[in-house]
């Protein structure tokens, strides 16, 4: 199967196989008017299998969110058919509005309009904690 090269756009490479659809949904790529390709289970020397997303336009993406969900992703920006920028993601220091705090004693449990914000508290283990109550996040978006 061949998906064509893009002239100007973004390629999210090295997505953990099976997580492509989740990343697509979180980034709300369905809202874009341009061409978007989601490739599942592509062969990868490094990973065995991987998912890839190609967006046929250079758009603003929330890299913090992707970094939290799947920190191994590589973001390639393509301009005029050439690789203009490659970013290897790292765990973001803060994640806003992605993880929900499940602690019933947290202020976010009663004040519905408060944004749920988590901070990276242990970069080795990838542990995030609620900035309000310090409760540990369970991995993945909720």
């Amino acid at each position, binding site marked *: 199967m061949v998906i064509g090269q893009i002239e100007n756009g973004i390629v999210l490479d090295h997505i953990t196989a099976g997580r492509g659809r989740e990343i697509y949904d979180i980034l709300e790529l369905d809202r874009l008017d341009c061409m978007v390709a989601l490739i599942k289970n592509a062969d990868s020397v490094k990973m065995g299998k991987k998912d890839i997303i190609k967006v046929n336009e250079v758009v603003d993406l929330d890299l913090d969110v992707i970094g939290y969900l799947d920190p191994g992703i590589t973001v390639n920006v393509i301009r005029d058919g050439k690789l203009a920028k490659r970013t290897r993601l790292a765990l973001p220091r803060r994640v806003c509005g992605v993880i929900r705090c499940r602690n019933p004693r947290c202020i976010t449990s009663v004040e519905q*309009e408060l944004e749920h914000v988590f901070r990276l508290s242990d970069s080795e283990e990838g542990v995030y904690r609620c*900035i309000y109550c310090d409760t540990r996040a369970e991995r993945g978006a909720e």
Partner: protein
Amino acid sequence: MKHLIDILDLSVEEVERLLELAGRIQDAPADYAERCRRKKLATLFFEPSTRTRLSFEAAMYELGGNVLGFSEAQSSSAAKGESVSDTVRTVGCYADIIAMRHPKEGAPLVASLRSPVPVINAGDGGHNHPTQTLTDLMTIRRELGGFSGLTVGLCGDLKFGRTVHSLLAALSRYPGVRFVLISPEELRLPEYNKKALEASGADWRETESLEEAMPELDVLYMTRVQRERFFNEADYLRLRDSYILTPEKLGAARADMRVLHPLPRVNEISVAVDDDPRAAYFRQVRNGKFVRMALILTLLGLGD
């Protein structure tokens, strides 16, 4: 420093400056009796806590200031569903500084993000209570001259005790402090806190025996072992007496050791210990007022 929400918001130097100011106030209270004239402290207590509220109010009155506020959520607009942010934005139009106690964890942080005036966390559920930690630090410093090189025993409920977790975090920033964690297996310090101790480089060990640890301690920080923390009554009854401080157990302690307790106590320290010069817990209550005076002055920019 604009607000105080978590004890770790303060650097070691800021803690030191606060404790020094609190000491100067204690030594010469008349010099500070008019410092907060025409200033108002709002005590927003969304859940009752008589002793903390009285300590804040006494602190503000002794600085010559005034106090307004409420002592339970039912008598506030929170009962009508107002958000914490709206409450502090309103109160910030009347008061110069706010002390907030709230049953929900993180409420004072939310308040600080929107408040036009400084916010002090006076306790948010089982989470943080930084002015208690400042009180504990002031007491140790006042009684023993400093922190470095001390062996500090923490006894009782180390699993749920927020005062223990904050004190450990604050003390582990000083060089050479050793910790002896004395608790039943069921109430040991959580792994998360142990990991933080490890990262700080502090030396620590665990034991189930208060008697065994006693001779090596410079400070014994007692907490309550509560019945509701145990799965069954038999375990509670078996362990309860092991963690009650009596004059007999104190007999094995050093002459210059100090006993602290965040209070209120129920039965974990026998009243027969109260008159021992090593019992520092009522002096600790007094220190709480001075350290809150120092904090109010500092946050209002009226310190020395």
